[in-house]
């Protein structure tokens, strides 16, 4: 028995070493940095420990802006993308002809590079000397005024960011949901049909509970992914996100480390810890809610 145990540890050793060095140790380090005031990675020195970093970060208007942006992004894109993906998947699973073509079309954004997609969005939304962008052309055609979506008002930029995020995360959700819908046995629908169950009731009482584990998975990963958003914002608004007012928490952390005003690992660590606490809280709430509404068979 004992020897078996040792063997097991031996087999686990490579993974434990790898995870220990590249994940556990950095995590602990980040935690320590966040409480060390003015830590300097070059000289390995600090001015003492305390909650100063957190106080600074929480008062930093750039961080508050990033926090606000991230929350708006999360609250809008997670439910929207999941809902839209659900309806598209429902549509996909109810049509027969050209289904594979549609599936491919919906899946394209997933295999396309984020930054490449960003350029496409620039063309769609950006105002240049030559053109106001495709979307503005449409708005003009309907008799509206041109809006500068990239350098213009906050709501316009936020709209583009949300639109872009939803568009990027949707394919994966559609992929998961179409397979989840396909796994619901036809017999359940037949049973419901024989009982004369209205369509809406079939959807809410049978389809949704049956695919609830997958929906839940998408919501959890969606929340986590949206809280960690950064590249989407860079793709649309460039690297100086603070100036554009479109920074996110991860963007703020990056700027604190490597940005123009960077070189503050302590502030970056504190912001990272705050992000971690936020994600942890949200995930815990999700888990609590799911206990009642998610049905694992």
């Amino acid at each position, binding site marked *: 028995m004992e020897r078996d145990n040792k063997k097991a540890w031996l087999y686990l050793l490579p993974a434990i070493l790898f995870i220990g060095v590249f994940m556990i140790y950095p995590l602990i380090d980040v935690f320590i940095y966040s409480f060390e005031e003015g830590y300097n990675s070059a000289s390995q020195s600090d001015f003492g420990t305390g909650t100063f970093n957190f106080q600074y970060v929480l008062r930093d208007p750039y961080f508050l802006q990033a926090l606000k942006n991230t929350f708006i992004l999360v609250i809008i894109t997670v439910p929207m993308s999941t809902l839209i993906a659900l309806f598209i998947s429902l549509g996909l699973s109810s049509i027969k002809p050209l289904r594979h073509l549609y599936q491919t079309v919906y899946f394209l954004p997933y295999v396309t590079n984020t930054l490449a997609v960003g350029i496409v969005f620039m063309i769609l939304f950006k105002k240049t000397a030559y053109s106001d962008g495709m979307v503005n052309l449409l708005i003009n055609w309907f008799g509206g005024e041109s809006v500068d979506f990239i350098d213009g008002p906050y709501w316009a930029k936020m709209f583009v960011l949300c639109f872009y995020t939803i568009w990027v995360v949707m394919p994966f959700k559609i992929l998961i949901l179409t397979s989840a819908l396909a796994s619901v046995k036809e017999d359940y629908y037949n049973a419901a*049909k024989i009982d004369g169950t209205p369509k809406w009731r079939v959807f809410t009482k049978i389809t949704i509970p049956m695919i609830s584990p997958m929906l839940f998975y998408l919501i959890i990963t969606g929340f986590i992914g949206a809280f960690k958003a950064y590249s989407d914002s860079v793709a649309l608004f460039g690297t100086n996100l603070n100036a554009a007012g479109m920074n996110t928490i991860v963007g703020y952390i990056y700027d604190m480390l490597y940005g123009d005003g960077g070189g503050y690992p302590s502030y970056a660590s504190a912001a990272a810890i705050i992000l971690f606490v936020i994600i942890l809280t949200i995930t815990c709430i999700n888990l609590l809610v799911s206990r009642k509404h998610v049905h694992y068979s």
Partner: protein
Amino acid sequence: MRVLLQNLTKKFPNRNKKEKEDVIAVNDFTFEIPDGKLVGLLGPSGCGKSTTLNLISGLLKPTSGKIFFGDDDVTNLPPENRGIGLVFQNYALYPHLTVRQNIIFPLQNLKGKNKLSKDQMNQKALEIAKLVQLDGLMDRKPNELSGGQQQRVAIARALVKIPRVLLLDEPLSNLDARLRLQTREEIRRIQRETGITTVFVTHDQDEAMSISDIIVVMKDGVVQQIGAPQEVYDNPSNLFVAKFLGTPPISIFTGSIKAGRLYIGNDNVCSVDIPDTAKVDVGIRPEGFILKEDGPLACKLDRVEVMGRDISVVSQHEAAQTTHIRSIISSDNKVDFGASQVRFSIKPNKLLIFDADTGNRITCNLQ
């Protein structure tokens, strides 16, 4: 409710696109199910029995033909307007709902003047649960129930709206042997108590024979024979039905008729009142063999299996179409296990003669 199927035909497009011909799942099925009877649709897999059930339920639309419930033509009615209860082979219980919620589910769909209050629904669910003896398990989830209990929940859900016709698709196939015996009694009892016309599908002839009032034997989409179980067993209309019904199966020999005598191989078995025929198929039920020292049928003894009440004698005969012929005789008989040969005489009513080409039964008097 009397159910009438009139020239019912269902064709499916061929999966193999090179073959243009449609697959005929049910071919010209005409049958009247009398009110309050339990009918078993019996046949090997792929014979169209489940398709027939789905046509009655309305989940499938017939290619041609009509279906009547009583005097109502329901051929074009959607399933929900037919007033049927259907129990699926795998029960299709909603796994996220409790037994009570599963049973109530159909009632919650009622609209308008049929709408029930919560108390009424619970009351009805409880009544039905009592009928299927589930009343102690109302708050369990389906995966916390045994196979037999799940089966009864499925039946309760199908019965709660008091359907005009109850349909069961392979109701016992997911149960183990003992539970199967018990559950088929249960189905019989529930059917008797409710008096609802019931159609069930099975490939197990024991199941069909034991509880049905009427059995319908099908093969390749064509009805072979309809009748009371005993009658179909005693008087099969063709070789297929004779072979399909009965365990152990009927033994088939190649025989001939010469001058009013039936020969199996060279053994002159009995007299028969049909004209000379060079080749016929002769079927003998296992219980039709009588051990007799000077009996006409001489067989090479293979082995003897003792089963307590009966003895099963396994032997060989050169004219037999199967390698072994199995006969069941009472254990009162003394069999010489060491002998190399056994001789049988045959009970005339257990001997069936079939046309060698068409497989149709040739009825005759045997002596």
